[in-house]
């Protein structure tokens, strides 16, 4: 089995579809979807189909074979009829949008999720009870019908609310989904036509200009200076040249294939980059299409908070159902009628279910989501708000996420010295020594030997944001010099270009000859840049401190050291040299001829080296450090080359300064890699090729043993394997990425985070969260918010659960001891959905108790949202105290009206008998049924007020779990006080405002009864302070273990 799995995972892109069969099944399975592939025959067929299609060998065929294969003609193109046939066969050339769950299904899911089922059962029991009553007595009271309807209303309202919240957060994203319709230039019936890209079919001959998107997977037939940006597919920042030559077995690497949705870059060279190619795959069958369907095939993982809430719902529902059934049996065996027992059951269910809680959780999450949106973290899926908080591993893509996705000058070497250039986003802080006259020469070469230009009309745009015509490295040089020297165009104007030789891959250099801006100097200046070793070959002197020195062995050696050092940093190095052409040989009127090369190209003067890299975003290193201190492992997963990956990893701190890889140790000790003790290395760099040959255990071992890991040259499905590997370690995995190639991993991750500006639509769609400003540091904010919300949800739930006991006890006492019912079902609903709502939301505004960023992420399986101490403490400690306090108010009301506590015991049958209208109280007074009922409602109100007053104390104690309230500050969270005020106001309105509406079962309560439970409330507060004090005093003690939730 295991063997098989690794096989499946080791295939490259051609095996994409193998993983598609993942998890529609049982989500409890850890190795989801990896197992059941052989079971599902249907899927397997599909799989075979895909494999057949992905036998991509078109790059190996020559033009004739291609024509034959696709039945087309390179010159004439397809005929329209043939194209129409193919279109009918293959369907349009567009990606099938991922299947959306129908809105009605989403809505219905909300109706039956969580506690809803329990409430539905309650409602139906109510109606059944009424049905039984009605069949025996036509005048049966409609109370049960009302109660049933109210329960259904509660379910529907909370369902609608949750649905609305979900829809709201989904809507934010739909704006990202808009795709601009694309046009393609195609040759059909020997004519060039522009048609919508959707109508392209296999065999079409298309022409793509620079700046356009490649409309389908195409096999390049001819290309002129075309480069494509594959960064979203492979993670390479550098544009890849494309030509018709077959250069590599792997279709992803070969030069003669362009992929759907990548961009053909504009080149500054004329003629502008154009490419002609044959469409070989369309729509979902393109590489991008496969990745997209790979992503949509990966089922969304249940978010940790969803799992926690489910766990919590199970606990509460379990308690409700078991107590309900237990007391149903007790009631029946106590000779209660089955119908009555049924009504008790409803009461117990309603009392036990915190009806308002799930709504509260939703509100709490959306409040946090809003807060995060303000910090440019857009949360698509509300539940994902918490996920970042429990994240223990972040798998980050490199290009565009950790880096700026833009080549930038990082280092310079001149005067035998390496200088560091500022690579931050705005280049503002260039501190290297610019006084040397070597720099003056170097800067001149950089400025002049450059064909890149700013696009016009961008005067007010900051330099770094200006759009440039030219390739990536020239752009970098242009911006670099613009920042350092000012107006580059002006400098170029002053040093008029006489002639130039553009860069090409055979020369490996670029050369231009200029007039100088010194009117007295009539010499021409020849400047040259290119691959350092080629440049050095052409030089005989080297400039040091502005003076030319002969290039001897030792200087050549320092050059090589510097070159190797910069290259080792994963940077692309360029060499620069110049030569002043002697005025006597080359007078002003000299006519240069680039074909005849009638000027010297050797014995030049070497000036310096300059290296470029796609630099890390400036906020990243700090964010990585913060993640580290928060116990989060940051892993880099990139499609880029290992050297570059390692360099970036080192510079952002993913590999810390003092840790070494096995290779580093081997290099340092000068021993073969095999002899190095694996345990000595803290960091590991694993390439896709190595990953391919690894079994899942080996991967697990690497993930478990190394603290600092970089995965390089990985394919999209390898990213998926890595994410799954992390998840097998019971980690909650966050994946950040921007490219199409990240989208499957983004989806598979517990939380996928896409970049808002740089990110591709596919990535944004697959992600749960979008960083609008592409700022990796926002993740840290997200972690903080997520941890806070988890803590606060704990508090909210503890607060909400507490009063359930106070609501439940009355029913139990009522059944066992036969007291008049202390609190009615409707009244309970008024607490759960009325007075308690705002306070429990207010707890979401509570500040963190201690520095939550210095503790480890919670363990998915051990640190539950609702754990045993929380339930026990809420139910059996505070809940019980509350129940006692509320009973005190209840007994007080009855006693002061004439029914002393002892007279109430076993009074239930007479009390509720409609024909007894002269029930005698302790003092000999006689009560009619209605008078008793009214007193019962007063009792409800009293019990309600008792709970309400103690819930205020409960709310205050729940502000902290460990610290004293006075440490936390009683008034720091103002919203808590809004909550308390709302509680009291709603209570007052119910009792005094609506006291006359009999259906609500509230009466006007004497003012003093509001204070009866106050001593109990104070007791709750004091007790909890004592609990917290002992927890702080004796950490790890028996008390701590049993009382800290």
């Amino acid at each position: 089995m295991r063997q098989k799995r690794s096989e499946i995972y080791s295939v490259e892109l051609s095996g994409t579809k193998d993983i598609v069969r993942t998890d529609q099944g049982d989500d409890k399975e850890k190795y989801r979807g990896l197992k059941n592939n052989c079971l599902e025959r249907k899927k397997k067929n599909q799989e075979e189909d895909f494999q057949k299609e992905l036998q991509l060998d078109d790059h190996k065929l020559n033009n004739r074979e291609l024509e034959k294969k696709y039945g087309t003609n390179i010159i004439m193109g397809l005929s329209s009829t043939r194209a129409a046939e193919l279109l009918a066969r293959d369907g349009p050339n567009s990606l099938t949008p991922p299947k959306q769950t129908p809105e009605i299904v989403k809505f219905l899911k909300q109706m039956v999720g969580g506690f809803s089922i329990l409430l539905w059962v309650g409602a139906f029991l109510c109606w059944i009870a009424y049905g039984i009553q009605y069949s025996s007595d036509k005048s049966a009271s409609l109370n049960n019908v009302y109660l049933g309807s109210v329960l259904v209303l509660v379910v529907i309202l909370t369902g609608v609310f949750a649905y609305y919240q979900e829809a709201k957060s989904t809507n934010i994203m739909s704006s990202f989904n808009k795709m601009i319709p694309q046009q393609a230039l195609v040759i059909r019936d020997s004519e060039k036509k522009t048609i919508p890209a959707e109508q392209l079919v296999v065999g079409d001959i298309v022409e793509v200009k620079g700046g356009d998107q490649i409309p389908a997977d195409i096999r390049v037939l001819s290309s002129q200076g075309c480069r494509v940006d594959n960064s979203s597919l492979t993670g390479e920042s550098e544009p890849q040249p494309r030509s018709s030559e077959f250069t590599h077995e792997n279709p992803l690497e070969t030069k003669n294939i362009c992929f759907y949705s990548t961009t053909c870059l504009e080149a500054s060279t004329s003629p502008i980059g154009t490419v002609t190619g044959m469409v070989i795959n369309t729509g979902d069958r393109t590489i991008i299409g496969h990745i997209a369907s790979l992503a949509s095939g990966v089922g969304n993982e249940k978010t940790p908070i969803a799992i926690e809430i489910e766990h919590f719902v199970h606990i509460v529902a379990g308690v409700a159902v078991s107590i309900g059934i237990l007391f149903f049996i007790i009631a029946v065996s106590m000779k209660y009628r089955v119908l009555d027992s049924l009504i008790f059951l409803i009461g117990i269910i309603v009392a036990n279910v915190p009806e308002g809680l799930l709504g509260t959780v939703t509100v709490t999450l959306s409040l946090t989501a809003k807060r995060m949106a303000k910090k440019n973290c857009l949360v698509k899926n509300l539940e994902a708000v918490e996920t970042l908080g429990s994240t223990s591993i972040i798998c980050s893509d490199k290009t565009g996420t950790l880096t700026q996705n833009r080549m930038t000058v990082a280092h310079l070497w001149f005067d035998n010295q390496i200088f560091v250039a500022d690579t931050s986003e705005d280049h503002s802080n260039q501190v290297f020594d610019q006084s040397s006259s070597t720099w003056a020469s170097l800067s001149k070469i950089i400025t002049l030997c450059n064909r890149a230009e700013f696009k016009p009309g961008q005067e007010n745009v900051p330099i770094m944001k200006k759009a440039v015509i030219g390739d990536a490295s020239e752009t970098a040089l242009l911006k670099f010099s613009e920042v350092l020297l000012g107006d580059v165009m002006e400098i170029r104007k002053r040093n008029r270009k006489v002639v130039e030789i553009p860069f090409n891959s055979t020369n490996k250099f670029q050369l231009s000859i200029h007039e100088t801006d010194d009117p007295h100097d009539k010499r021409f200046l020849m400047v040259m840049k290119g691959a350092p070793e080629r440049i050095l070959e052409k030089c005989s002197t080297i400039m040091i401190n502005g003076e030319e020195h002969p290039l001897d062995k030792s200087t050549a050696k320092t050059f090589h050291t510097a070159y190797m050092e910069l290259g080792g940093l994963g940077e692309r190095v360029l060499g620069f040299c110049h030569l002043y052409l002697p005025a006597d040989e080359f007078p002003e009127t000299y006519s240069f001829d680039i074909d005849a090369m009638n000027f010297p190209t050797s014995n030049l003067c070497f000036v310096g080296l300059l290296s470029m890299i796609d630099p890390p975003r400036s906020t990243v290193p700090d964010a990585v450090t913060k993640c580290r201190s928060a116990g989060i492992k940051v892993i880099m997963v990139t499609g880029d080359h290992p050297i570059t990956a390692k360099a970036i990893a080192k510079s952002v701190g993913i590999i810390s300064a003092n840790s070494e890889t096995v290779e580093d140790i081997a290099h340092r000790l000068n021993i073969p890699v095999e002899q190095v003790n694996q345990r000595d290395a803290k960091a590991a760099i694993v390439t896709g090729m190595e990953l391919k040959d690894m079994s899942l255990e080996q991967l697990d071992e690497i993930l478990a043993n190394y603290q600092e890991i970089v995965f390089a040259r990985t394919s999209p499905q390898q990213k998926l394997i890595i994410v799954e590997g992390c998840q097998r370690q019971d980690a909650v995995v966050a994946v950040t990425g921007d490219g199409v190639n990240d989208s499957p991993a983004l989806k598979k991750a517990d939380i996928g985070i896409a970049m808002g500006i740089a990110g591709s639509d596919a990535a944004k769609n697959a992600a749960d969260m979008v960083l609008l400003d592409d700022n990796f540091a926002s993740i840290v904010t997200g972690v903080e918010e997520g941890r806070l919300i988890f803590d606060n949800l704990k508090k909210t739930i503890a607060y909400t659960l507490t009063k359930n006991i106070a609501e439940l006890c009355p029913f139990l006492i009522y059944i066992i001891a036969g007291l008049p019912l202390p609190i009615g079902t409707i009244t309970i609903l008024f607490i759960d959905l009325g007075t308690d709502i705002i306070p429990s939301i207010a707890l979401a505004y509570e500040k963190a108790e201690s520095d939550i960023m210095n503790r480890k992420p919670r363990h998915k399986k051990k640190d539950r949202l609702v754990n045993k101490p929380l339930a026990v403490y809420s139910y059996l400690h505070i809940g019980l105290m509350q129940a006692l306090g509320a009973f005190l108010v209840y007994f007080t009301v009855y006693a002061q009206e004439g029914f002393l506590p002892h007279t109430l015991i076993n009074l239930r049958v007479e009390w509720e008998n409609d024909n007894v209208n002269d029930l005698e109280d302790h003092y000999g007074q006689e009560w009619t049924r209605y008078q008793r009922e009214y007193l019962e409602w007063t009792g409800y109100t009293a019990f309600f007020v008792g709970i309400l007053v103690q819930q205020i104390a409960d709310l205050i104690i729940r502000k902290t779990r460990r610290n004293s309230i006075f440490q936390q500050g009683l008034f720091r969270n103002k919203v808590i006080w809004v909550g308390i005020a709302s509680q009291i106001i709603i209570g007052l309105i119910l009792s005094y405002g609506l006291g006359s509406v009999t259906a609500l079962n509230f009466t006007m309560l004497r003012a003093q009864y509001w204070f009866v439970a106050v001593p109990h409330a104070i007791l709750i507060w004091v007790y909890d302070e004592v609990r917290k004090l002992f927890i702080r005093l004796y950490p790890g003690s028996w008390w701590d273990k049993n009382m800290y939730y």
Partner: protein
Amino acid sequence: MTKNEKKSLNQCLAEWKLFIYNPTTGEFLGRTAKSWGLILLFYLVFYGFLAALFSFTMWVMLQTLNDEVPKYRDQIPSPGLMVFPKPVTALEYTFSVSDPTSYAGYIADLKKFLKPYTLEEQKNLTTCPDGALFEQKGPVYVACQFPLLLLQACSGMSDPDFGYSKGKPCILVKMNRIIGLKPEGVPRIDCVLKNEDQTNITTYPHNGMIDLKYFPYYGKKLHVGYLQPLVAVQVTLAPSSAEKEVTVECKIDGSPNLKSQDDRDKFLGRVMFKITAHA
């Protein structure tokens, strides 16, 4: 790998067994004996404390009460009416004139109810002046006599069957006791037939009068032997046909502070009952 396979029933059972008793750690239901001891001790102390506290607060609350008069009487401002004999099901009396067993229960109930009103029981009670409230200052409160003779035909003295055997059943109507209630005006119980036919209705004492001397009531503890005034309603069913069904409604009349019209409380100052007599 086994981890992710669905647990078989056996494994499940084994896990449960291990949970109930784990021989290696000596854990029973997830806790060791010592741990159980500690937790039980804790809850014993904690709940003991709570129980003591609750008892104390209840005791304090009971101290606020007066043993003779309830603290508040606002919830029963006006008395309800109730009838005797106490019907088994919703106020309906069904009997057969010719079958004594059918009404034996009613008669027994009436006799039992009238027991305190017999002469022997009343001999220690005071004869109070008629027609005025009998207010007392204490400390000893006396109860007024209610001579059974006032009920005439329904007193049970002349007719031990209370008229049931003659098709003239007696129903006693009583006003609920309320401490301190002082009726104004001239209260009387007025009974009418709902479905007017050949039956007629007589109330005793004459006109259903309730004498004010029985008010106010001072409570069970102070007002020992208090007898509440009664009104008897005798319905004379026409001796003719086989089955009779009459509905009688009685309500308090003549006293402005005793309510008899309340939408929700059907027994506040009124009572309605049905008599069904078979031949």
